[in-house]
């Protein structure tokens, strides 16, 4: 398989992860921070950027962990525990580094890092990467695409919720209720993309 072909398939996987197989709107992973941090576009962008960064890096790290450590040692069944440990350690480490060396970045991005240590979308991406047997290039595309898709969804949701803030909503539906309904409608919208790309 030549390089340009691999690059092409990585690109396809990336677009599929953003639109047709959006991790948030088709598998409903990472809902907790999606619901709680989607009140303002500004904070949604901050959290979304942090997710893109962490998801790209941790899927790559976990790809290496899986294929270079777990498979040779035949302990693939430990991937759940080890993926989570890798993610937690990576996020902690990056938070310390950013806090020390780039205060401006820390204030715009770093403060969201603790929120996503236990985000199930991050672990979900690593596990899908294994199930779908992605190559290294495809993993990069998938990690970045999943993060970007998650960010797209939360920023869109924050935009909608900012508009809703001035609208009158029945009392029983205020807050999480209306947010879940919107999430459902957005998911329906994204399912409309499914036929566009025939890749998983």
């Amino acid at each position: 398989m030549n390089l340009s072909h691999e690059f092409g398939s990585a690109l396809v996987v990336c677009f599929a992860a953003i639109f047709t197989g959006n991790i948030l709107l088709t598998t409903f992973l990472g809902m907790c921070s999606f619901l709680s941090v989607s009140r303002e576009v500004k904070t949604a962008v901050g959290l979304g950027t942090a997710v893109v960064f962490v998801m790209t890096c941790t899927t790559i790290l976990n790809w290496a962990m899986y294929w270079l450590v777990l498979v040779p040692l035949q302990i693939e069944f430990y991937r759940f525990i080890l993926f989570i440990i890798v993610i937690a350690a990576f996020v902690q480490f990056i938070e310390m580094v950013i806090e020390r060396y780039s205060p401006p970045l820390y204030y715009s991005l770093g403060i969201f890092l603790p929120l996503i240590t236990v985000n199930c979308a991050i672990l979900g991406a690593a596990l899908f990467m294994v199930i779908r047997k992605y190559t290294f290039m495809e993993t990069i595309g998938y990690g970045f695409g999943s993060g970007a898709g998650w960010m797209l969804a939360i920023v869109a949701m924050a935009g909608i919720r900012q508009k809703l803030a001035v609208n009158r909503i029945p009392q029983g539906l205020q807050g999480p209720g209306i947010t879940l309904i919107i999430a459902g409608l957005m998911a329906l919208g994204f399912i409309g993309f499914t036929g566009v790309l025939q890749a998983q």
Partner: protein
Amino acid sequence: MLAFLVTVGIVSAIAAALAGILVFAEQFISNYGDCTVDINAGTRTFTVKGGKALLGTLVGEKLFVPSACGGRGTCGYCKVKVLEGAGPLLPTEEPFLSAAERAANVRLACQVKIRNDLKIEVPPDLLAVREFTCTVARITQLTHDIRAYRLALIDPPEINFIAGQYAQLLAPVYPKSSEEVYRAYSIASDPRDKKAIELIIRLVPGGICTTYCFEYLKEGDQVKFNGPYGEFRMADTTAPMIMIAGGSGMAPIKCILQHMQNIGSTRDARYFFGANQVCELFEQDWMKQREQTLPHFAFVPVVLRPETEWHGETGLVTHAVERAYTDLSGHEAYLCGSPGMIDACIVVLTKLGMPKTKIYYDKFA
């Protein structure tokens, strides 16, 4: 069996390696060295190991910045001016700071981390705040759910406070509460009496500190409080005063009246005390005596629904104020009570022409 042990060993080794990296990073990356905190341009300085939040560090240095939420960034009380070294404003602080406060470099001490030398500014009063150990000298039952607690100071032996200020009483861990909490109560006693303070406390059903006071605290017990805090005090003018406070809100008003007597004030003052029933009135004799000793003071108890024979004012306390005055543009008002009561009073007072800047209040939630 061997395979089982090997796999567990491998997983543990990977986890230990990652933990090792983090410990290493903590040691070398998160090490900010010693940082110097300068308070009020050199009035006080101290050096601490960097990396911790400012609020906890200040409290550790016995500088009691008020805080109700314990540093979770939800109450917005721990405001201090950080002149140098705080870094940009955090999204977690934004909701609590007005545009004017942001321009003045006001920050929430619980959100600011000490990463380098800091220059901060706190109200000078705060530097006078101390932690006091005292014994409960006397408990007086005032009504069915209000008691006065007289606390005799042990260490430090004396307190200086301004009439109207409050103290934060510490409720320690006790059978019904698993954490230490501080709660604010206005000081009701004579400011000249430096060896003791008196707090008027109403039992709040389910309240951590008031339950402690009512069910566990006995005469002779030791308690701790810190203080004094607060900007609520008598303004230095000669304008006639209206005071409105019901229940335990009487505490700062009583203190201010005592202070007026101490300095021989001849200001015109009228105190409207609101109660639901006649049995909720207290300290009436003390107020009657002040009517004798202060030249222009009147005590006006207002009872909403008198259950026995009652010759005084009835109805809501705000209605009594409306009946008594037609124009309040030259008056000053001193309010103490729940947010709902204070907001209602402000509406009535401004309707009668009082400027908002002349309304002083102490809101307790």
